[in-house]
């Protein structure tokens, strides 16, 4: 009797566990399946591809670490790494500082602040490709907006007696000159990123504890002191996110570079994301491209870990 009831009970548990599994599976099966096949497996497979020679027509041939050996000696790759580092440096400083400053100012309920916010944020809504196309036009030597503007300025200077030739403005090749191209390509990226950072900080400022600010005010903190020692420390979770997102976005910068310069002239604007594409699809060296992707992934991973640690910490706080 007791035995029978125990048996049915354990059988019940088994059916319950099976039911539970089936229910969970009915929710997670399709999304997880898609994610595993289209995201997780490809990520792992790229590691394997980076150890092969592959021209996309014949099957990949295993060659060990050869691609990585070539990479180390590849001057274009070195250019790409340096440019990526510069890109990161600019991205974590310029738009971050500008976005934080804007958020701090616009958090004061200025008149027409909605218009101001939209003005700064608008580039974020436009596709990077379209930004690249519009800025390519801005940079055109003869018909572009920038040189036409410089021409106007030079004319003005000439009119008040300076010895300048306004026509010379039209000879500036923003995207053609290796010394100017990288800055010219970064400008639209910064233009786009600043509004994003501003929005993140504005959201962060909303969560700043008003009581703490009041208390600091009582203690005589004002202006810069208030910002530096009270508000900025309270924004540190947002700052972490902004820095990580900026770095990841720098590593992802593909659209603007690919459309504006394709990495040229003479790899002056080459970045890893574009170099990976060019090697894989223009030169048909997909194994080599995979090796570049792995390097890119390695850089991204360092910063993703930083982000994950913060998410985990918040997670533990949340459950406690």
């Amino acid at each position, binding site marked *: 009797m007791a035995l029978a009831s125990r048996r049915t009970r354990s059988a019940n548990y088994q059916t319950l566990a099976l039911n539970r599994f089936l229910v*969970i599976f009915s*929710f997670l099966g*399709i*999304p997880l399946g*898609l*994610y595993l*096949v*289209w*995201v*997780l*497996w490809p*990520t792992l*497979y*790229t590691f394997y*591809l980076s150890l092969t020679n592959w021209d996309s027509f014949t099957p990949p041939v295993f060659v060990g670490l050869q691609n990585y050996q070539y990479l180390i000696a590849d001057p274009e790759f070195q250019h790409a790494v340096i440019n990526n580092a510069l890109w990161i440096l600019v991205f974590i400083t310029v738009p971050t500082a500008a976005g934080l400053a804007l958020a701090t*100012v*616009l958090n*004061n*309920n200025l008149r027409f602040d909605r*218009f*101001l916010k939209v*003005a700064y944020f*608008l580039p974020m*809504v436009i*596709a990077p*490709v*379209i930004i690249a*196309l*519009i800025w390519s*036009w801005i940079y055109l030597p003869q*018909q572009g*907006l920038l040189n*036409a503007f410089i021409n106007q300025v030079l004319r003005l200077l000439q009119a008040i007696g300076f010895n300048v030739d306004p026509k010379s403005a039209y000879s500036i090749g923003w995207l053609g000159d290796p010394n100017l191209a990288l800055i010219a390509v970064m400008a639209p990226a910064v*233009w786009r990123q600043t509004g994003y950072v501003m929005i*993140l900080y504005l*959201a962060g400022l909303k*969560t700043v504890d008003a009581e703490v600010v009041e208390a600091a005010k009582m203690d005589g903190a*004002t202006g810069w002191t208030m910002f530096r020692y009270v508000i900025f420390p309270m924004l540190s*979770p*947002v700052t972490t*996110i902004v820095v*990580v997102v900026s770095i990841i976005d720098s*590593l992802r910068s*593909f*659209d603007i570079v690919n*459309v504006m310069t394709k990495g040229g002239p003479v790899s002056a604007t080459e970045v890893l*994301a574009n170099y*990976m*594409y060019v090697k*894989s699809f223009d030169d048909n060296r*997909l194994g080599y*491209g*995979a090796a570049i*992707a792995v390097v890119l992934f390695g850089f*991204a991973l360092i910063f993703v870990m930083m982000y*994950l640690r913060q998410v985990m*910490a*918040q*997670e533990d706080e*949340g459950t406690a």
Partner: protein
Amino acid sequence: MSLAQPAQANKVAREKKFRKGVHPAIIVIVWFFALLWLVPIVGAFLTAFRTFDDLNEFGLFSIPRVFTLDNFTRAWNTANLGQFMLNSFIITIPSLTACVLLSSMCAYALVRFRFALSRPLYMMFVAGLMLPFQMLLLPVFKLSDDLGIYNTYWSLILIHTAFQLGFCSFVLRNFMRTVPPSLFESAVIDGATEWVIFRRIAFPLMLPGLAALATLEFTWIFNDFLWALVLIQDTHLKPVTTGLANLRGQFTTDYPLIVAGSLVATIPTLIVFFGLQRYFIQGLTVGATKG
């Protein structure tokens, strides 16, 4: 009258308090840069309405002789912009729908059932959002080819759905965690199955989060360039992003046409942004400020 006055005084006092500390010079600087920020867009707009000859002859800063819609009609008709726009919608709408539905299921399961894998799965999604696309590019290209969907809308719909699933599940799961579990438990006691709870309780609760996500995802998928570049080869299947980039190759010197096309291609995302601005900004910040 007597009622309105204290309210007025109150308002003035409040404005005074808020405005205190912002130096007029700073306000001038913020306005200057805001207008500067708009220059590329306004400049593009003005160029798109002018003729090529007018620009060539008199320069950009001349007063336009004629305003013309010619660049827009040429972009739409000869450059096939209409087809590109249609393709973008054919790709974006199913991806968006599938992604939002599947991730709401995913988020529900991750919050409702505390099983051994729920946390690792969550971490996988978080890590996935930061993945460089380049890491998936070649295997997805190969997989699409092997499945016979390379160079079809399906290849883009599948990768967008799968990739964006990670971000959406992450956001929705955090959204769902704010719902008290007792709500679901009492429904179980009333005899509701999990799918009924999902449909009747969880999904409606997720709607505000879904709205924020959908606006954001719409622009991300609509604005995608890299995947379309790798997975679509035929010109008549291209979405507007790679379509426009392709046009530049054909109409190299005809910049008013390219600029006009670019502006038209931005209209859908602008409509989404201005129509659903509140949700859009919520979506952008939800992943960043909440864990």
